[in-house]
């Protein structure tokens, strides 16, 4: 009966006398915790290496020495050095937008208890995008600081509308109804956006590059104003790990465990809207990162959101930066925007993951 187990030996007649060894802690034990921490560290190292690569690689091929020189002995008159420096905000933007989308996707899957939840599918990115297009078309907005408020408004309105539609009927906002409402609203919002775009060449031009999702051509004036919003959103979402763990057991059990389900959902949604709104305003609607990364992460961490969230935060920019770097070199002298490359690279990886594993549920 006990073969194969060395720690859990039943001792007839002495129930309740075992003192749990430290290695049998709740979340798979301290040993498992250390292993996950090591994985997380490895992921951070990969991310740092990718960020360095992102500074070194581009449409203009530069020798490594020149790249290093641009940092050690920067010469403003040197055109090559300027090229390298222009890659810094782009890299930072990839890190920020990727982290935001990964974190938001993981939190969304937890809060909606739906493996298909993703800022792209749930209508949030579509809401942000439509709001930005409306801002460009109606008010002639042309700067990031203008975009971002429209993006927040659009993301928040879309999130609330999806939730309200899904809440209709007796069972409330079930995961399936949330996904259906989100997908339907997404489609509707994107067609509205297209209506505006086909009717206004001017808006289309200004919007075109932003829309496909990209991190190129953005400078510090775009990146910096987004930072406080991202910081607040990330702080909120990173603190929801335990909450999402209870919520994963179903609303009834979460309530039975003393969680105020409505309140915690709203709080998490606020974090998600801040992250998605900013990421969309920064880089355009980038899909797929928020969907695929949390799934991939679960293969490493299991279903514990206290680990899924930080892993998603680190690994999502790995995908986005990697996609951006490859996008810079595959179609020389042109570039493929990161938003397109993430889907191109991510889709096969995702299919492989789902087919290989025993399902990538919650």
């Amino acid at each position, binding site marked *: *009966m*006990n073969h194969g*187990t060395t720690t*859990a030996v*039943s001792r007839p007649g002495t*129930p*309740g006398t*075992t*003192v*749990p060894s430290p290695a*049998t*802690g*709740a*979340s*798979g034990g301290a040993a498992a915790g250390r292993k996950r921490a090591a994985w997380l560290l490895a992921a951070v190292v990969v991310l740092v290496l990718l960020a360095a690569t992102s500074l070194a690689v581009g449409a203009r091929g530069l020798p490594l020495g020149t790249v290093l020189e641009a940092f050690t002995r920067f010469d403003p008159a040197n055109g090559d050095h300027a090229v390298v420096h222009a890659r810094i905000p782009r890299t930072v933007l990839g890190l920020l937008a990727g982290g935001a989308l990964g974190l938001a996707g993981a939190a969304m899957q937890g809060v909606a208890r739906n493996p298909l939840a993703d800022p792209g599918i749930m209508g949030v990115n579509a809401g942000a995008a439509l709001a930005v297009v409306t801002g460009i078309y109606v008010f002639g907005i042309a700067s990031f600081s203008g975009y971002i408020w429209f993006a927040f408004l659009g993301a928040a309105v879309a999130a609330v509308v999806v939730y309200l539609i899904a809440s209709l009927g*007796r069972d409330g906002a079930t995961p399936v109804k949330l996904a259906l409402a989100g997908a339907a609203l997404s489609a509707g919002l994107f067609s509205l956006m297209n209506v505006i775009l086909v009717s206004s060449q001017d808006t289309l031009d200004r919007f075109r590059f932003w829309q496909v999702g990209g991190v190129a051509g953005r400078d510090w004036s775009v990146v910096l104003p987004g930072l406080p919003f991202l910081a607040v959103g990330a702080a909120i979402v990173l*603190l929801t790990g*335990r909450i999402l*763990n*209870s919520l*994963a*057991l*179903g609303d*009834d*059990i979460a*309530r*039975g*465990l*003393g*969680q*105020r389900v409505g309140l915690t959902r709203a709080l998490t949604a606020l974090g998600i809207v801040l992250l998605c709104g900013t990421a969309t305003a920064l880089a355009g609607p980038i899909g797929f990162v928020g969907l695929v990364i949390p799934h991939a992460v*679960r293969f490493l961490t*299991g*279903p*514990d959101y206290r680990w899924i969230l930080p892993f998603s935060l680190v690994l999502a920019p790995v995908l986005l930066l990697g996609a951006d770097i490859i996008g810079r070199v595959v179609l020389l002298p042109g570039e493929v925007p990161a938003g397109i490359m993430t889907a191109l690279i991510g889709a096969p990886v995702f299919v492989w993951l789902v087919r290989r594993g*025993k*399902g*990538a*549920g*919650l």
Partner: protein
Amino acid sequence: MAVLNAKDLTLKYDQRCVVDGLSVEIPEGRVTMIVGANACGKSTLLRGLSRLLKPAGGTVTLDGKDIHTRPARELARTLGLLPQHPTAPDGITVRDLVGRGRYPHQGFFRSWSPQDDLAVQQALEATDTLELAGRNVDELSGGQRQRVWIAMALAQETDVLLLDEPTTYLDLAHQVEVLDLITDLNRRRGTTVAIVLHDLNLAARYADNVIAMKAGAVVAQGTPRDVVTEGLVRNVFNLESRVIPDPVSATPLIIPIGRHHVPTELELVS
């Protein structure tokens, strides 16, 4: 210590009134079984008693204090609940799932502690699931899974435990096993237990106290011997029956009488 009381309780789903002006007490330190026909409001009552459903009228009190005005987390340290069809996240291990029952004992500044470890360990031992601790919940049989969920509820360490049909989908042996386990818990820790149960015979055997419901109202409450009678079965289930002493436990045993397989002499005898 922990007395759960409903007074003039009215519970509604949307506009449909399921329970209307019901008053009932769940006696302390006892096992109470709530029985009744399908859709009589017994599960709804349990949801009302456990704060899953906000009353449209009346109050539910625990130790004299309204459960809807107490802080949620504090209440969850006294009142535990296992709903009918709990779902476990894919890939979660037994020990992890049971550990999530510790949620109300933790906070932002008080994370996992040795006390939590001990509570989980004891819950696993009490439910005989210690050997399963490292297994994935998806790989378990129905009976094992139900024991794990009960272990999660035990890890919550509450004085009152409400269970909604904890034996559904289990074979007879597992049904008995689960009810034995709950009885152990009641006898060892003095936990007040209220269970919604379909099987009237098992309810009559394992209950200290039976609450029989019909159309959202309580029609009888008391010891199984006093409450479970042929008249009650006729009234609540609209079913003819014979009630005899259970040859094993001497509690009431209901023998249903349908239209078939009934020799005509039986009608003459009765």
